[in-house]
């Protein structure tokens, strides 16, 4: 499904969470689609099942997936997703830092603004 970068500083757990989120947001995994079980995914990736379990729990906590006992884990309907305020704050902070960094690198405010617009356009799927 996706590759893990074992050399990366990011922990595997984070990578799994991020990757699945990516796939969901990119629409590769559609709503209500059944995800591989913890067992299956851990075997496929050769990753500690506890790690996968934790990742799934986090994704469920963030509202990206839900579990039905006995049936499996499924992608949430986009409309059911609640806005995670805390997480929005975290990502905003990241954005803030990113913009500052770009500033250090010598981009003008206008250039940064242009960049943001381009990025947004990339995500045509956003409402």
């Amino acid at each position, binding site marked *: 499904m996706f590759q893990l970068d*074992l050399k990366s*500083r*990011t*922990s*595997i*757990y984070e990578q799994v969470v991020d990757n699945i989120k990516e796939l969901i947001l990119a629409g590769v995994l559609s709503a209500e689609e059944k995800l591989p079980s*913890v*067992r*299956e995914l*851990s*075997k496929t990736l*050769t*990753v*500690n*099942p*506890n*790690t996968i379990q*934790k990742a799934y729990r986090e994704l469920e906590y963030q509202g990206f997936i839900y579990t039905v006992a006995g049936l499996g884990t499924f992608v949430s309907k986009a409309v059911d997703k609640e806005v995670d305020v805390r997480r929005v704050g*975290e990502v905003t*902070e990241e954005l803030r*830092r990113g913009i500052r960094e770009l500033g*250090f690198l010598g981009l003008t405010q206008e250039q940064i603004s242009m960049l943001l617009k381009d990025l947004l356009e990339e995500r045509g799927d956003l409402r």
Partner: protein
Amino acid sequence: MIKVQNVDKIFDGFQALHNLDLNVKKGSIYGLVGTNGAGKTTLIKHVTGILRQDSGSISIEDAPVYENLKIKQRIGYIPDDLYFFASYNLKESARFYKSIYPGWNPERYAHMVKQFELNEKRKLSRFSKGMQKQAAFILTMSSMPDYLILDEPIDGLDPIIRKLVWKYVVEDVAEREMTVLVSSHNLREMEGICDSIGILNKGKMMIERDLDELKSDIHKIQVAFREPMQDPYAGLNVLHRESRGTVDLLIVRNRKELVEKVISESSPVVFDLLPLSLEEIFIYELGGGDSEIEGIIF
């Protein structure tokens, strides 16, 4: 689960294990790391029921391991120094394992032999060390252990085989909730596979934690401010600090959010926040002085 409580072991005047506690939850992959001579092998030999502790208790599923046949039948142990019956080949060894481990799975054995491409009829003494490890692995895994204890298992194996080994391990952990206790110096690999870590030093358990929690608790940061700041790190648990020019390099024992909050209050021009790798945590915790840390972690 595996529970070691308050264990002491003295070898002829030398205290090898000191008031040691260890906890391995069921279905987890626990990495036991430590310097050479820290007592990893000694501890493992206690958990596998070979050695008898001087005091304290060692139990699996709340039953003591020592002389406990029922538990030992469900333990698979691959030691650092392998031993096979002299002049035996893999097939004969398998026959012996089959007769003493009730969980023996012949289909898995056959499958693994094929997959590892080992010659069943060849004397094990003629195998290379790496192939011997593979043979030991096949024999152990084919007995379908509920508890897998590995002492430096993957040293000497090529990357392809290593991947294969972990694949089997992960499969059993996933499918049967097998509990794994693995000791190794290859911290990078440990990092990728373990969910819990125990750091041993001089016979004492220094740190025992969930790996992710261990990593989330400690960070290294590179910070630079436009002007020198008055105590910009107040509120942080600074473990180590050094300066290279205007850039400060620190190790702090705090969660990521707190660090970001505190540092960004001072509007730094450079701010890199990175988790430490297991190797770095190891070196930091056991390395001793600041001089060891410089140049290794930064």
